């Protein structure tokens, strides 16, 4: 589902590169935890994989057809994200002016799926994240844990092959974090997607199939 080879990235104006010659693979149905010290470049790696930042060298192949996002232009990268990648952020990023159901439907709309074709899909996902009956609610009336579960539903709704999560439980208390994580991991496995989850929490990391540590010298 994800195959990174020879990846190098150095920020403009920065002295030494964050990483170079980086290799990383995530298989279908596999969940991988990415840990490392603050400032080591975990978010940057995720951004490169999603095509939000451009890599200096290497290839990043995503999805069953192994499309290399590094060689694509901005529009094609956006299209690839819409088809193959689901996102969960530390800061939730739920659109405040759309209802819960509308938020979840956004990736479907971005893929060009007509809304009427998929009402059952949204209900099913609301069920899967334990938010049955929340469809018409406005995001401002939801708690942080609920918001993050909406984000998980949104990340999965269009059946992406890769889930990227940057500290998905960073803003949640331990009990809620555990519940949210369970929902995420369960659904990722069920959909046979791959997941790369950046986290500072040992508890979260231990529940993944594999743990990778990013250091200034590379991935371990």
């Amino acid at each position, binding site marked *: 589902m994800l195959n990174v080879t020879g990846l190098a990235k150095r920020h403009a104006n920065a002295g030494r590169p964050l990483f170079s010659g980086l290799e990383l693979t995530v298989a279908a149905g596999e969940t991988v935890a990415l840990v490392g010290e603050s400032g080591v470049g975990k978010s940057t790696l995720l951004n490169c994989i999603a095509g939000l930042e451009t890599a200096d060298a290497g290839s990043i192949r995503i999805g069953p057809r192994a499309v290399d996002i590094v060689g694509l232009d901005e529009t094609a990268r*956006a299209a690839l994200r819409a088809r193959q990648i689901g996102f969960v952020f530390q*800061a939730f990023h739920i659109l405040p002016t759309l209802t819960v159901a509308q938020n979840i439907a956004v990736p479907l709309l971005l893929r060009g799926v007509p809304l009427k074709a998929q009402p059952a899909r949204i209900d099913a996902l609301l069920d899967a994240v334990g938010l049955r009956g929340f469809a018409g609610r406005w995001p401002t009336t939801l708690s942080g844990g609920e918001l993050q579960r909406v984000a998980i539903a949104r990340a999965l709704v269009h059946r992406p092959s890769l889930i990227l999560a940057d500290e998905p439980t960073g803003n949640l208390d331990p009990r809620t974090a555990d519940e949210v994580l369970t929902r995420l991991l369960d659904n990722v496995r069920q959909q046979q997607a791959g997941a790369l989850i950046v986290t500072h929490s040992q508890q979260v990391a231990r529940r993944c199939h594999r743990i990778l540590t990013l250091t200034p010298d590379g991935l371990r």
Partner: protein
Amino acid sequence: MNTLAWWLIRAQFRTRRVATSLSMLAIALGVALGYAIHLINAAALADFSRAMNSVQGEPDAVIVGRDSAGSVPLTVVEAIARDPAVQSVVPVIDTRVRLAGAPAPLRLIGLDVFSAATMMPKLMPRQDATATDAPIFAGGVFASPAVLRQLNAAIGDTVTLQRGDRQWTTRLAGDLPALGPDERLLVADIAWVQAHFGPDDAVGEARVRLTPDTDPAAWRDELARRLPPGLLLRAADDENARVSNLSLAYRVNLNVLALVALLTGAFLVFATQLTAVAQRSTQFALLGVLGLSPRRRLLQVLLEGLAIGVPGALLGLALGYALALAFTRLLGGDLGGGFFSTGTTTLVPAPLPALGFLALGALASLAGAVYPAYLNRRQALAHALHAGFAQTPRARPARPLVPALRLLALALLAGGLSRLPAWSGLPLAGYAAIAVLLVIGIAAAPWLTRWIFGLCAGLPLPATQRIALQNVAQAPLMAQVAAGGLIVSFALTASMVIMVGSFRVAVDRWLDDVLPAPLYLRSKATPLPEDLLAALARPDTPFARVEGMAHATLTLDPRRPNVTLIVRELDRLDPAARLPFTGPLSVPPDETLPVVWISEPLREIYGIAPGQTLRLPLLGGSVEVFVGGVWRDYSRQFGAVTIGADDYRRLGGRFQANDLALWPRPGQNAAAETWLAPYARRDGLEVAETAEIRQLSLAIFDKSFAVTYALEAAAMLIGLFGLAVTLAAGVWLRARELATLGALGFNRRMLGRAVTLEGALIAIIGLLIGLACGVAIGAVLTHVVNPQAFHWRMPLHIPWPTVLGAAALTLAAAIAASHAAARQATRLPLAQVLAGSQ
């Protein structure tokens, strides 16, 4: 439309109701003004040409005298009738008579019923059914329905027609059923009209219909070469061109004002969409991360602009129609220009212009959304997702010299443009100069801001003030937008105030010059009765001095509006006693050469210089006259020529005064008016004191500029609203920073004060620059646009109290608007903002 786009637009309308609806209203206002002006003018023009057509029919050519007192000799008419290319010639006498009992003179058209039937079917009379003989040959007159209604007369009644000293008592023999309800005129047989009012061996004009296989243009060219110099050959198209030329400059000016309103609407859409983009930068970044393509991020903002513009423009069309309707109902079909004085006007909302204005409104809103859309597309997703809106990092100018040179180049451009001549009668270069001046103002704003900060940086300021200063300095884009709106709106308002003020002062002084006598007597277009003139000539009247004046029209160029010929009793050697000359007088080289004094518009339009000789189409011939000087005239936009009554008589003209200037003997003002009263009552003459005429003239002046005051007020409101919107957005953009300040113990009141102060600073900068631009634009309007569009020159006069008062008022309003924005700042959910979840 795409579902997601639609959701976002709906959300935008729901969450930013005030900003979107005000932008919509601003667009609506611009469209409404433009459309209303269009509707009123189109209706007035249509009325005019309809009236023209029913009287004139549709001839291939019209032969008339160039001088309104002139006529077409019957020999010429007969010669044309013999031409094999001519199918028919209709001789017509078109004159004005006074009907006893009617307040204003009426148009009387004498024609030959048989030959007129084919060419002017609308003028066909309907005879009284009870009459035995054909009354048209027995000297009866036929009245249009409007005249019958006005006189409250019935067919068969006896009426007395009167023109100067001649009278004709006759019968109302029938009506003119084909004429519209507003057309007031009389028709009679041409022989009778000629016998009573006309020249013996001539007619007023001859209308020619050619045989179908004749090329009218070629025939006209050929005939024009053979015609005597006092006669003019006109095509029907000339007439339409003249009518449209008549009000062209006035219409264009009003349309420019409407365009300004539309532009301010576009500015408001710009401010709204820019802040909308800024506020939602994390949301747009998220959508981008989820896979919304850059093109669609751009399109979304443009679509939102259209979603404001299209309903706004539709509303504007409805509003414009209502406005035009109200205007024509209340004030008659005339925008204060005085060009059309038809009675009631029918508005015809044609689909094509309506679509055009709809497109214009949509385009304005689209234009306003372009830069915000571009900024939105350019946002770096990863950065915007975490840190919010980033203004495009502008390349710092390497040396401050570069922008200075750029401003200088722009200033030179504006100066150059304001020196260019009019382009096909329109001051387009002048308008361009105004646009460049506005650009200079906006470009100078960051400069002035930096300079003021330079001054303030050294001062020991309390925390609130320092924060405000920093905020203005840190959000240059927002500050520039807010200041830009104020600069443009205040500059336009101040310049209009200056232009109108200069004009009013000039008109006021001019009225002093042109109204030297204390009392005036006027007959509307017909000569004054002989017995009155004879009575005035006797020594026992209460008048010390009486001077007569007659008006006629001349056609110098058939495609331009007619020129007024003023024949008046004045001293050939001292015309300056009566006319306000703009320059030195030239003395004719020859005692016998007639002298004329031309008005300023005439000099501008026809390029005639004092001291030269000129051939004027006078009294049926072409007469060489000497141009003795140029006098100022604000009342006849298309030019006037004054000639002394003595010169006119020497040329063989008959001087019949229709206006009199009267100087009562000392202390006999009341007696003078009593003396005139019976004549005025009997003949429907107007007697007016100079003070009344002045007052009326200035009232008309003020009325014709009323439209511009409304537009100025609208522009100011829009500028202020732009300030409030951008300030509020600026607060939102810096929410995190303000929240941090809050967390550091900066209380909400201090926060509010800082934001208010920030608004006041921006407003002061905007107003200072706006004032400077306003004076410059006022000068361009006064010295370039006015002379080019209307041929009126006047000295610049800046009404400082009004201008500074407006500035103070705007500043107060700006502070109030900032205060409103500050209240929003203090209501920010600080904790939530700090937690980063918004």
